């Protein structure tokens, strides 16, 4: 049980910290949260800065163009960038955290050479075409079909909850290549260019007001067979590689952000008199214990990952379950502190409160995560 960082890790932190101090002021002003093209420009500019400084793809393997950093260094990176107020991955989320690592792990040499460098440089943005109207949490029931025709697949169907679809160049697409096979087989993973004829994107407005995801309609879109990552009909296994990355590391930086928000919240409460309300004060206190523990759980998961080759395990589900609820509690408490101002959409935290509602749904609902914990960690029988 050692929570001290090695000298090498502290050096890494110090170098990163000085680079952030010099580099962050060079960033253009933050775009409006609802302006997705603006956000793409901003996020990819940040990615380019990371690339030029040698921080792009920090935790990707070196032979994939990454830095081969240890999970602990990645943790330090997320900690420091969040503390410094640097942008999060944003529009590069799918490319850096899902599609990229999947191509790096499962792609051929040609595929890695074609797709990975532009993600690292911030030249190309990816989106995720997994969910369908009838296949959200029950991903294996997806129906979008791909029929082989010479060197191409002809893809027809529709996708939904496709984050960043409007501004993406590529889509990591799950399609059914063998309708006769059992549900989890017969699925393949394709890289689909978003400008291919037959792709129609219709943005979906969220309850938070933004259009961060979209519906996508695919009408006989031709995707080269060479764009398939992994074997035909082996896409489910390929996808599980991707999802373990998503659940394991996607929320690390956000815990740091929540701790910062909590401190700001306490400051506001002291200023406006809410601090004298013992119920509210104790609620803030409990959140302090909660987010501190979640940070320790993160360190625990990272220590485990470091010793299992870097692929995060099922510990990610435990973390995500607790974190998603804690985040909602944080912003509900913020609304209590704000009082009537919580009804003002222009006030700080109001938009975050709305966004927090998605955390128990996205990337596997809390109910699905509880099934995963019960069946895969606790070994309870599958059933209804």
């Amino acid at each position: 049980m050692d929570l001290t960082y090695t000298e090498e890790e502290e050096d890494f932190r110090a170098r990163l910290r000085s680079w952030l101090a010099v580099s962050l002021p060079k960033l253009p002003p933050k775009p409006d949260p609802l302006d997705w093209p603006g956000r793409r420009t901003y996020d990819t500019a940040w990615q380019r800065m990371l690339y030029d400084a040698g921080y792009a793809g920090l935790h990707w393997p070196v032979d994939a163009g990454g830095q081969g950093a240890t999970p602990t260094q990645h943790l330090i990176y997320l900690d420091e960038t969040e503390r410094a107020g640097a942008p999060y991955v944003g529009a590069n989320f799918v490319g850096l955290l899902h599609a990229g690592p999947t191509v790096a792990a499962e792609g051929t040499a040609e595929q890695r050479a074609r797709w990975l460098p532009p993600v690292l440089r911030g030249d190309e943005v990816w989106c995720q075409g997994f969910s369908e109207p009838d296949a959200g949490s029950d991903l294996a029931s997806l129906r979008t079909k791909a029929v082989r025709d010479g060197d191409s697949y002809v893809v027809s169907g529709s996708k939904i909850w496709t984050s960043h679809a409007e501004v993406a160049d590529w889509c990591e697409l799950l399609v059914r290549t063998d309708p006769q096979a059992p549900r989890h087989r017969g699925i393949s993973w394709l890289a689909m260019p978003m400008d291919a004829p037959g792709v129609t994107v219709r943005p979906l407005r969220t309850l938070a007001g933004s259009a961060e995801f979209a519906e996508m309609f695919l009408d006989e879109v031709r995707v080269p067979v060479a764009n398939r990552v992994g074997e035909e009909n082996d896409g489910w296994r390929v996808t599980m590689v991707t999802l373990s990355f998503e659940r394991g590391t996607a929320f690390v930086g956000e815990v740091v952000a929540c701790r910062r928000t909590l401190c700001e919240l306490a400051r506001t409460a002291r200023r406006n008199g809410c601090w004298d309300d013992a119920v509210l004060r104790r609620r803030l206190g409990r959140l302090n214990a909660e987010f501190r523990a979640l940070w320790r759980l993160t360190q625990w998961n990272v220590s485990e990952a470091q010793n299992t080759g870097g692929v995060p395990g099922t510990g990610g589900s435990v973390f995500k379950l607790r974190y998603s609820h804690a985040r909602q509690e944080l912003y509900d408490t913020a609304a209590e502190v704000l009082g009537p101002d919580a009804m003002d959409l222009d006030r700080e935290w109001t938009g975050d409160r709305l966004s927090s509602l998605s955390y128990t749904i996205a990337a596997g609902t809390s109910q699905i995560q509880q099934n995963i914990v019960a069946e895969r960690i606790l070994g309870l029988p599958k059933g209804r």
Partner: protein
Amino acid sequence: MDFRLTDDQRALRTGLRELLAGRFGRHALRAAVDREGTVDRELWRELGAAGFFALRLPENEGGAGLGLPEAVLLFEEAGRALLNGPLVATHLAAGRVPGAADGARVVTCATQLRGLIPHFGDADAAVVIHGAGMRIRCPEELPHARRLRSLDPLTPLHRIPDGPKAPPRPDAILLTAAEQLGSAARTTEMAVQYAGEREQFGQPIGGFQAVKHLCAQMLVRTEVARAAVYAAAVTEDFTEIAGAKLLADEAAVQGARDCLQVFGGMGFTWEADVHLHLKRAWLRGRMWLTAAESEEIQAEALASAL
């Protein structure tokens, strides 16, 4: 940074788990219930011989010279097994009260529960903790102590009027949290095992999502508490220790309640061990630091960080 247990720490934990499995299995547990929680002196001495109480004493004082992280692992095992007796108080008294370190004497503490002393009739000494120091008292010096019918069948309690107040010692808080953690882990296991065996409507009840979700939440609470307790043992930061107690109390109490729910009617009987975990968890939840006190400490930390 490697937060995981070292090989030595794992070996230490395994050693005590095996000792308790052999010496304090279900039969011994129920025997302890039958004698209303009085301490098994022979087992107490065996724990002393195994270094349970002297663990953190320096080697030249007959201890093992180990730290709070190791002590936490041992107290977690004690909590799993529902081992009874004033474990934390005797551990704290080792090196100060003669006979505590080797388990020859049973030492309780007068300031861990407001107005109540556990295991008072059984104890050779009751200590009052003032800050880092201690003052020793004998049971005869507190003639007003009255025995009450304890909620927890494994912890006899005496009420003392105007019981002394003292600020809680951080290590006492943390070791109690470690016991809660062990109890939370154990009730999770019990629920999972029962849910996998008990059949209703033609299938194990663990196949039903409603039961699964209870069990999953038990594990989530336990693992969050574990991260908090282990980290607090390493940092020895008082706010972190108080937070660990808060989360471990919740994991133990809610875990036992959920376990009782999974056991259904059987869980409500005296025969099942679930109620013993719940009652002890309730009691420990009031020891040293209550949830309200811990939350105020957290709030204070937030305010002073501004």
